[in-house]
């Protein structure tokens, strides 16, 4: 199985010891604070598939005073699969299906105002970057928070660089069209 997936993340969390679905969700959201929170449904479906594929197994069921919970643990196959995935090179994906890219292209094709769109998109990106920078530089921010904020910042920065270059090219392009 190639690529980033919930199953590998859950396997990774199980690597530190048996855990139940609720706990896995909580730890995921803590570890990856800038990621979209996992839905419970997704956690349970994924756990069932891991069991089906022999990568995890049920350790036991207990109530512990609260609602009844099933505890899962990783199998040896699961550990092997995790090690394999962690060492695998991720495909250097060119995200050319990105919404920003699509909107600029559609805007040019349909005679819309791509430049105005890019200006507004820039303002939104910068706003988000200021938020992430504040999160990252807050006193007492832990390493997981800093790293995930950094990851998001660098991707937003890449978008911004592309938008800046594109805006400059639009001006040139428009000038060329007008001169023709």
């Amino acid at each position, binding site marked *: 199985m190639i690529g980033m997936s919930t199953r590998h993340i859950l396997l990774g969390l199980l690597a530190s010891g048996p855990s139940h679905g609720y706990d896995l969700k909580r730890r995921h959201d803590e570890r990856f604070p800038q990621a979209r929170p996992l839905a419970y449904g997704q956690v349970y479906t994924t756990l069932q598939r891991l069991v089906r594929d022999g990568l995890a197994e049920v350790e036991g069921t207990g109530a512990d005073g609260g609602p009844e919970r099933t505890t899962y643990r990783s199998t040896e196959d699961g550990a092997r699969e995790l090690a394999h995935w962690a060492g695998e090179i991720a495909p250097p994906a060119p995200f050319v299906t990105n919404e920003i890219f699509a909107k600029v292209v559609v805007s040019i094709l349909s005679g819309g105002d791509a430049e105005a769109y890019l200006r507004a998109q820039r303002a939104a990106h*910068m*706003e988000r970057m*200021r938020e992430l920078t504040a999160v990252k530089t807050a006193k007492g921010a832990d390493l997981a928070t800093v790293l995930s904020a950094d990851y998001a910042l660098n991707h937003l920065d890449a978008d911004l660089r592309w938008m800046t270059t594109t805006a400059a090219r639009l001006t040139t392009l428009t000038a060329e069209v007008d001169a023709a």
Partner: protein
Amino acid sequence: MSNGDSAVPLLAARDLTKTHGMTRALRGASVELGAGEILAVTGTSGSGKSTLLHCLAGIVRPDAGVVTYAGQRLDQLPEKRLSELRRSDFGVVFQFGQLIPELTALDNVALPLMLAGTPRGDARARAGAWLERFGVRGQGELRPGEMSGGQAQRTALARALVTGPRVVFADEPTGALDSLATEQVMTALAHTAREAGTAVLLVTHDDQVAAYADREVRLADGAVAVAGVTA
């Protein structure tokens, strides 16, 4: 924290024009800086960022337009008053060449304090604390020619802040730094400015650096293209 929308800005430029020879570097640029506000000025190369900073810092006089600082017309102030004001209220950091080559890092940072009458020992002690803050205490006895570009830039930042100015003007202060050093320097600058209530005019082409500011003003062809959303 942003005071950019407060009624009376600390520093304001209105309709500035400035021509260098044949080049119109500024054509009607207006910008406001609130007390304690960190404002990023961004824009493509040649859009007039440095020229705007020079006009606001009273280093260059605009051809037309108005610059006001704390209620007075900066663009009309006599040269002597202007340089007094710059020494007492402003700190500046440029990308290159602002340190005195003959002095050590420590003495470079101590110098503005000594010029203001602080005894040498005292000045050097305070200078040392600022070098520490920017992570270059160990380079205190080096002269600018013996420091890396990044170390010199951090020393220059320490020198700009050592006198407790009300406004710091920084032109590409992280231009010579890698991303980790940029983060350290910007964090130190932003924390210091916020603690001390220092306003910062931050010229940069690096959007990750601009994100340390409360707000962004973007220049295009010598005028403001878009004022970013106020934080």
